[in-house]
Structure formats: C-alpha cells, structure tokens
C-alpha cells in the first residue's frame, strides 16, 4: 500500500471537525510556516517539492507562485479552483466533503507564502453541500485563531471566503474563474496579461486547484525533500485519482505517482479490475479532455514498457500513442462500450460548455457534435470521419482558451485509435444500432518495437 499524504486520516471518525483534525496533527503546517519560515521559504519548499498543478495542466506550482508580481500597495489574491467539472474527475469534491480542514490549512499556508490577505475558494455552484462544509470549517478555524487578524501572533492576517459558481465548466479555466468571481459571465480572458500580473480585480493573482493547495500541507510538514522522494522523475508526490466507469471499485484513490497503470486497474488495493468479469477496451486517463487510449496502449507504451501513472509515462509517445495525466479523471470502458457514442457524448458536453466567445470553439464544437450524432445514429458517411479530424484541427490551438483543445482532442484521438469502429458505424448502420462493435483488436498485444522499426 502506497503512502497517503492527503487522505491518511480520511476514515477517522469526525475528521471533518476542527477538533479531530487538530488531534491528528492538523494545522501543524500553519504553525511551522507562520512561526519558523518566511513566505519566500515556503515558496522555495513548494518549488523544491516538485509539486505540479493537480487541476490538469501539470504546471509546477512553486514556479507559478514565483511568477506572482508584487507591486507595492497592491493587494494580491490566492484563489482556489474548486470548479471541478471535468468529466471523470471528482477528487476535490471527495477531499472537501471528508477532510475540509486540509484545504483550509493549505489555503492559510499558501496565502502566507503569496502574501495574500483575502483569499477565495471558488466552488462550482452544484457543490452547495461542500460550500456549507467549508464555511463551517472556516468558522471553526477562525474560532481557533488560525484565520483572521494576526494569526498565531505572526502578524499575518487572512480572511477566507467560499464563492459559488453557477453551472459552467468553463469557469475551471483560471481567467474564466476570475471573471466569474468578479460576478461576470465566465468568458476566459485573452492572455497576456496573465493572472500573476493582473488577475482578480486587476491585481496579481494565483489560481490553484484544490488538491495542489492541499498538497502544500504535507510538503511543509514533512519537508520538500520527503515529498519529492515519492514518485519518479518530475512526477513527485502523491496524486488523487478519480476512478470511474466499468470498474469493480470506482472511487477516489491516493496513489504514489509511478505505480503501473495495470496495477491501478487490476489490483484489489485500487480499482479491482473490470466490473462484471468483462475485458477492458479503452481508458480516458486524465479526464474527458485528454486523448482516449485503447486497452493495449494504456497498459504499455509503444516501446513495450509498462505504462506508469506519471505525467511523463502517460504522455509517452505524444498524441500518436500516448495521452496525459490531466486531472487524474480515470474512466475505464469495458468491451461493451461504444467509442462512437462516448465520443459523441463528450462532444455534446463541450458543445454545451463552450462559452461562445471565440468562433472556432463556438461553432466548431456544435458542428462536431452534429456529425458525431449522425455517425452514432447510423446516418453517417465515411467522409464524416475525415471531416471530424479536420474540424478538430481547425479548433485546436486556435482558440482563446484550452477548451477548444479539450474539445478537439477526444474526437481526434478516438478516430486515431478506433477508426475501424467509426467506419463500421457507417458501413453497418443497422447493426450498429443493435449491437456494439465490441473489443475487436483493441486489447491485442502491441507489435514489438523491432517489428515496427525493423533494423534494415
């Protein structure tokens, strides 16, 4: 069993209360940071830990912090991104529901590091229960002197507020989130300027995912070096993986980065294999936005190595044969699932969630959805498949924010790896309405590298 840094005490009864959390060593990181470290030292620790943004992009958190502009007389803000709306991802909800003080503690440490005296936790509006849980936790922490004026006599002041969204996936994009927090439509801003220079209320702002902020607690408690010992290469520490789909034991798992994907799927410690004794057909490893991979490519890289749960190993092979760790939204598909239908479903999601500000995404997501709908319902043409690839290319990279890419990648990757199944939907429309394509060769062993690239 791997080490647990975030969820160690998740099963302790009453851990959602200040008292129990404190008994279990909670708020030690606040004491350590505020009493023994300078803000810059905290930033340095987080940098050294190698922590990478857990929201999806995987950008080093410490480096993001060090970009924050610090002009005199201008407030700085830390905003926690709890908009969690990426299909397949539900780790932040889990963490906040069961161990809310971990996030509060992380917010205090991080706000101290950044010199923010007012910080906001932005949660998607549907998380009303979690908003109440966090507000209660904030009140408890304030009551105990961990929030408010002159925390622990350090001279550091912090007010923490929870802000609800209103139902918009796009607000998970940091500048859309800032717009939404300002009470506006969640239209992503055109960058530059980046939030580190001009963010919330045009002040320097850092936006971090819930899990990234929570991870600062063990980093400060145990030291960056301890944290960085876990994992492989540039994938350090632990990561919460949200496992869903056709698995025996779906749920949130804290893993040490570096375990094999195969172990994660089949070990009884984690997902316990595919439900109902079926076989694995495909996996979306990092939330709906990342490329979908067939069973054989998710378990092994194209070179025949075991695929590991790290940023690098999942991305091995680029988009040709790899994917991304993303937000850790791990969705498994069994042999009875239809990839065309799933692609259409995701496509509808992005169409529904496009803010409509820039034209390739506004128009292109709807177009892809319509073509995929036609394919799924047996009215497609073979040329539709290439059309989808081309439309996805016209969106990718040409939009204001990454939602365009996120809409394009699932479509492009599904066609890249499951083209046979798409073609079958066109050539066998009636049959496709009655049964699924099945596993086909998607779990077959990959050809050996030497067969792919024979030496002379």
């Amino acid at each position, binding site marked *: 069993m791997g080490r647990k840094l975030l969820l160690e005490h998740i099963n302790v009864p009453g851990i959602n209360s200040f008292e129990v959390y404190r008994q279990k060593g909670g708020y030690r990181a606040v004491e350590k940071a505020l009493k023994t470290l300078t803000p810059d030292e905290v930033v340095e620790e987080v940098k050294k830990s190698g922590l990478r943004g857990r929201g999806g992009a995987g950008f080093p958190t410490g480096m993001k912090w060090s970009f924050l502009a610090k002009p005199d007389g201008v407030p700085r803000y830390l905003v926690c991104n709890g908009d969690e709306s990426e*299909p*397949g991802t539900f780790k932040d909800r889990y963490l906040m529901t069961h161990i809310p003080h971990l996030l509060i503690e992380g917010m205090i440490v991080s706000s101290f590091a950044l010199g923010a005296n007012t910080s906001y936790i932005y949660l998607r509006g549907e998380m*009303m229960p979690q908003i109440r849980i966090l507000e209660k936790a904030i009140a408890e922490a304030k009551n105990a002197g961990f929030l408010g004026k002159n925390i622990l006599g350090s001279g550091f002041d912090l007010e923490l507020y929870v*802000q609800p969204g209103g139902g918009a996936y796009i607000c998970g994009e940091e500048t859309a989130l800032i717009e939404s927090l300002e*009470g506006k439509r969640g239209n992503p801003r055109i960058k530059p300027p980046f939030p580190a220079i001009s963010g919330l209320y045009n002040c320097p702002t850092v936006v971090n995912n819930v899990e990234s902020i929570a991870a600062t607690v063990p980093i400060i408690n145990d030291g960056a070096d301890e944290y960085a010992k876990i994992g492989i290469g540039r994938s350090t520490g632990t990561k919460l993986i949200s496992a869903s*789909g056709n698995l025996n034991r*779906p749920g949130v798992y804290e893993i040490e980065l570096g375990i094999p994907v195969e172990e994660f799927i089949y070990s009884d410690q984690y997902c316990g294999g595919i439900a109902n004794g079926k076989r694995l057909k495909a996996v979306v490893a990092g939330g709906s936005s990342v490329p979908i991979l067939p069973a054989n490519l998710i378990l092994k890289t194209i070179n025949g190595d075991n695929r590991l749960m790290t940023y690098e190993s999942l991305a091995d092979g680029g988009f040709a044969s790899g994917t991304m760790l993303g937000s850790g939204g791990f969705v498994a598909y069994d042999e009875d699932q239809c990839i065309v239908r799933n692609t259409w479903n995701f496509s509808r999601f992005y169409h529904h969630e496009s803010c409509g500000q820039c034209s390739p995404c506004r128009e292109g997501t709807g177009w892809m959805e319509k073509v995929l709908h036609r394919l799924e319902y047996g009215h497609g043409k073979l040329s539709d498949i290439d059309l989808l690839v081309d439309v996805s290319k016209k969106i990718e990279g040409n939009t204001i924010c990454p939602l365009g890419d996120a809409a394009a990648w699932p479509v492009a990757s599904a066609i890249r790896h499951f083209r046979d199944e798409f073609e079958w939907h066109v050539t066998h429309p009636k049959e496709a309405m009655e049964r699924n394509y099945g596993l086909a060769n998607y779990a077959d062993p990959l050809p050996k590298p030497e067969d792919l690239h024979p030496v002379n």
Partner: protein
Amino acid sequence: MLKISDTEDVIFSPELLSKFAEIVSRYPEGRQKSALLPILHLVQAQYGWVSSIAMDKVADYLELKPIEVYEVATFYTMFFLKPQGKYVLEVCRTGPCSIVGAERIMKYIENKLQVKEGEVTEDGLFSWRGVECLAACGMAPVLQIGPDYTYYENLTEAKIDELIDSLRLKTVDKPQIN
C-alpha cells in the same frame, strides 16, 4: 426574448437582505458585482426560479445595470429563468454516468413522472432535466436536487421510485441555503 417582463412582484425579506449584505462585505469596496452569483442562488432558493423582476431588483441592490444581471443569469445553467417544479431532478448525462446507465435512468424518470425534459408535472411538484457532469462519476449514475443540491448516487430504478415517493410524501418546505 421576453415580450414583457414578469409581472409578479418580488420583495426581498429583511433576512434575505441581511444575507445579501454579508455577502457583499466579502469583496473589496466597489466590487459588489462579485456578489451576483451567490445572491442569484439565494433568490432562486427563495422563489424556486429567477424572474426578470427579481433580476431587476438584484441589479438595483448591487447598483448594476439590469442587462449585466441578465447576461450573467443566462450564462450559467443552474439558474432557472422559468418556473420549475418544486423538485427539479437534475440527472447527469455525461460520459462516465452515461456508460453506466444514465440514459436508462432519465427514460425511467420521464415515464414515471409522465413529463418531458424541462416540463413540470401537473401537481407542480416535479420537473427533470439532463445536466452535464456533476463531478460524482465514481458514484454514477447520479442526480441532484436543489436548492440544497443533495446528491443521489448509484441510482437504480428502485432508488428513483423510493426518492420520488418520499418527495411526494414530504409536505414541509424545502430547506433553504444559508
């Protein structure tokens, strides 16, 4: 576009207004627009939906132009701009829920309530709609019911029966958001 504004007047209670004031105090001076989303949630919790009159009142309270409130309320999908059933069953229909039966559950709700998506049952108690990912994929299929947004997870037909029956029996008012 609405031909005319809604006619039913909206008067915010003193309790509601004091909640508004507390929310506004969370933001820097002059940034009261930030309170718009939390306040719209409170209004919807109170009235079950957000009427144009209510939006005008909110605009007035926050010193915004009414159009600024309309722009925001129409952008976010959680705000109902038409009256709904007392209980709105919002069923997640995205990928992970879909592959474990969300569509079947929606069909079942439709048949059970005898209303189409977005319509209200004759007794005014229920409406339902499919929504996009609710971030509970590990407990799929799921649905939520506002205004407290309770989640009902690992749904089956039997659980839907139980849920709808219990809501029908419930005579007390829905709890409100704090």
